[in-house]
């Protein structure tokens, strides 16, 4: 079933702040096997010009995807999440996420399309820090596959 086009452009209220912790960054870096010292050693990060350890580029997805859950779970939109797969993902960084950040996400539905029986939804998540500064934008394309023939 095609999704309601009137949801295009709709923004959802900013999420509660997520505090980026040093140990969470370390855990993520270890999980992807990435030994770059900028993720775990504040001195190494400072030598590169960062005020504290930074997070790997895709770390922020956990935060933006949780925020996108507001959209996905909106009963008025009517997306069948059991049929959803992740199509595309993109990030544009103003600066890297770093330890101590308090990040809020504002999600907006950018486009809704119907193609070959699938619903395709583009969600943009704007991530800001505790000073209101823009940190990163994440674009997530979700594809809800059409119901299979019985």
């Amino acid at each position, binding site marked *: 079933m095609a999704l309601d086009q009137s949801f295009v452009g709709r923004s959802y209220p900013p999420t509660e702040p997520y505090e980026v912790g040093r140990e969470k960054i370390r855990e993520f870096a*270890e*999980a992807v096997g990435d030994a770059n010292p900028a993720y775990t050693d504040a001195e190494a990060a400072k030598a*590169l*010009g960062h005020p504290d350890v930074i997070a790997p580029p*895709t770390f922020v997805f956990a935060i933006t995807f949780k925020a996108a859950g507001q959209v996905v779970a909106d009963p008025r939109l009517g997306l069948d999440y059991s049929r959803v*797969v992740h199509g595309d993902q*993109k*990030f544009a960084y103003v600066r890297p996420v770093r330890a101590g950040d308090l990040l809020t996400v504002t999600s907006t539905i950018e486009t809704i399309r119907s193609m070959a029986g699938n619903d395709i939804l583009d969600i943009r998540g704007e991530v800001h820090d505790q000073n209101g500064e823009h940190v990163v934008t994440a674009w997530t394309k979700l594809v809800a596959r059409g119901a299979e023939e019985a």
Partner: protein
Amino acid sequence: MTAQISYADVEVGTELPAQTFPVTRATLVRYAGASGDFNPIHWNERFAKEVGLPDVIAHGMFTMAEAIRVVTDWAGDPGAVVEYGVRFTRPVVVPDDEQGAVIEVSGKVAAKLDDNTVRVDLLAMSAGQKVLGMSRAVVRLS
């Protein structure tokens, strides 16, 4: 931000050092915990097969995280990445054995852009199949 590669030293076609990343079931369990993505298709073979997959598959975001390492290890400073995007074209299937799967990632400079930035196009393969499409990063060099 301090990339260790100089903009002046790269040309369109410059190849980044390729890398291979092993993925076992244990890798996926660990990534699930670190990322908070506990979708059972990434750890439960029975569930994965019930929904029509050949076996447990890696998180797309895990593959995305590995692929950008070719860029961040080259640039030195992960904070030099300005943009990064991928399309998830095929799943990385991870069998339940000691070897698991392998993701092979290569990259080359596709364009020199303004402000000391370059676009790197990445190629990510597993079991002979391309697993990411349109995989591109813009990185600021020194």
